[in-house]
């Protein structure tokens, strides 16, 4: 995300100077810059800057985007997933999303933000960030001296806003994984897993791709808003969780009737609207690129819905509400890495391809994988993220992105993130299993996790 935008076009110029090897959007031809932005653009890392260097418009848009992206999780993902699970597990599913949001938020400012978005030290600089923002440090606002902390990645907005915006991405990425393990995982183990996964998987991958010194950023991988960092990453983790936990009792033999697809539709609506903050906010500025990202996001979502619907009709002679909702999400996922780099026509293509391919991912591929990825996180987010990342390499418009896309580079990034997430998620699950029991007892699973874990029930 985030390395391509820049308000007054400044950071692109500054980073291009600092990191000559960058081939992604940071090397876009610099546009008109302001002196204040130029000064900030040369920052090697987070630092204090004069309040006068802050862009009010960009800051306001980023604050709105932060709220929009948080809305995608709370209540977007909670409703989206809560509607798809069986009646006796709705509360547990929603509680999992809320619990993860809380755990990730605290760990973000304690450790993860620094690991992801500050420059690393020495040989590890390309792999993991430093410690200068750990322990809730930084993000200062000194009204008395007229200074505010800024990130070197977005020096025209306060670092507090930038860090909060990035936090909402971390929250939703961890929350997405819940879809693969619903109805059978211990709540405490899930929270522990989410915290460890944030630190050992999400933060490093975000550093690789979005911190200018990250090795994939230096390689020139294009990921405007998180196709690899969020969706491939979460999809791979979901697949590992599904294999590790095993299928739910009765899976493949009994019908698992969704509680209320109306909730799922409401969640989809929140995701669709929130995705405007996700993608257009990733421009990190209220500018033309953000406007384009907004438009392509919408077109891809619509195209994804139509494409999934067509695929479903061809296969089953039905157009289901869940299919429409899934198609919307597939289109949104696939446009995520491309949002700031492609034209409207390309967005249409990306959405159409993603809808059909993700339909296969959630049906045909799912059967081949033989994993109880309960709500098809890998089929929609993993596959959609891969489709989007590769098509970004193919369809990125140099006139928009300021750089030529490369399918090979995108493929390298996809394979790297996928492999790392697959392996490290397994490691994190193993560590978690040493401390807490991963799976609930069969009798608790049969009774439903709402009652057995939370002592709560839905009304009649």
């Amino acid at each position, binding site marked *: 995300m985030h390395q391509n935008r820049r308000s007054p076009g400044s950071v692109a110029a500054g980073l291009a100077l600092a990191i000559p090897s960058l081939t992604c959007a940071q090397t876009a031809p610099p546009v008109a810059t302001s002196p204040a932005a130029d000064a900030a653009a040369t920052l090697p890392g987070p630092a204090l800057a004069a309040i006068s260097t802050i862009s009010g418009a960009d800051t306001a848009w980023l604050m709105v985007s932060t709220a929009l992206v948080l809305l995608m999780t709370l209540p977007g993902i909670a409703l989206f997933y809560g509607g*798809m699970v069986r009646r006796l597990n709705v509360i547990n599913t929603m509680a999992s999303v809320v619990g993860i949001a809380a755990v990730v938020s605290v760990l973000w400012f304690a450790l993860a933000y620094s690991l992801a978005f500050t420059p690393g030290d020495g040989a590890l600089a390309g792999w993991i960030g430093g410690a200068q923002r750990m322990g809730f440090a930084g993000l200062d606002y000194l009204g008395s001296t007229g200074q505010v902390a800024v990130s070197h990645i977005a020096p025209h907005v306060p670092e507090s806003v930038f860090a909060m915006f990035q936090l909402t991405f971390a929250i939703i990425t961890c929350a997405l994984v819940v879809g693969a393990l619903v109805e059978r995982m211990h709540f405490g183990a899930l929270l522990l897993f989410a915290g460890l996964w944030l630190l050992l998987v999400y933060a490093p991958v975000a550093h690789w791709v979005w911190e200018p010194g990250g090795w994939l950023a230096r390689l020139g991988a294009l990921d405007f808003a998180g196709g690899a960092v969020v969706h491939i990453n979460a999809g791979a983790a979901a697949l590992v969780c599904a294999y590790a936990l095993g299928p739910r009792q009765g*899976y*493949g*033999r*009994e*019908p*698992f*009737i*969704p509680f209320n697809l109306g909730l799922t539709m409401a969640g989809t609506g929140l995701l669709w609207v929130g995705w405007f903050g996700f993608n257009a906010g990733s421009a990190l500025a209220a500018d033309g690129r953000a406007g384009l990202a907004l438009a392509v996001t919408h077109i891809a979502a619509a195209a994804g819905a139509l494409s999934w619907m067509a695929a479903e*009709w061809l296969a*089953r*002679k*039905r*157009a*289901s509400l*869940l*299919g429409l909702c*899934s198609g919307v999400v597939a289109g949104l996922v696939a446009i995520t890495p491309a949002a700031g780099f492609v034209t409207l026509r390309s967005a249409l293509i990306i959405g159409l391809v993603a809808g059909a391919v993700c*339909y296969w991912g*959630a*049906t045909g591929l*799912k*059967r081949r994988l033989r994993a109880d990825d309960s*709500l*098809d996180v890998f*089929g929609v987010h993993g596959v959609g993220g891969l489709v989007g990342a590769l098509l970004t390499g193919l369809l990125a418009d140099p006139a928009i992105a300021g750089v030529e896309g490369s399918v090979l580079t995108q493929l390298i990034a996809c394979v790297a993130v996928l492999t790392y997430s697959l392996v490290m998620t397994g490691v994190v699950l193993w560590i978690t299993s040493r401390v807490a029991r991963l799976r609930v007892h069969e009798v608790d699973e049969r009774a439903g996790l709402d009652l057995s874990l939370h002592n709560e029930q839905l009304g009649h």
Partner: protein
Amino acid sequence: MTSTEIFATAAHLHVLLRRKTGRVTDTEWMATNADYARAIVRFAREKAVSEGLDELLPWAAKLETASTGMGAPVRKPLLQSATEALRAAQTPAPLASRPSGFADSVPASGFRESSLPSGFGGGKRTDADGPDTRYVGGIR
């Protein structure tokens, strides 16, 4: 045996089997499908012997007799078949049923509806459509 008599026989046997053996059968299917009817006849006779349920035997015999005519094609002269097909094609389709009996309950569309199969809810059912199988092994 008329279709009404066949249905009455099937319904009677359905009730007897339900009460005496606990077996639930499909009355309509029993009255129209010869294979199913013969299977039920076989089952009824087995139960009659094994559990002493003699009252099943006359109804099983009746159904067996009826099953011989089920599904048999009715042979008609070619000219008669062609005439009937032509008449059927010219006869307008009856209006949809009017639940309330009022004029406002006629179908809303004033257009002549397409005879092409609709892709939106009107397509062929598939094996995965039933309520018992729809959500087995996945929700999508």
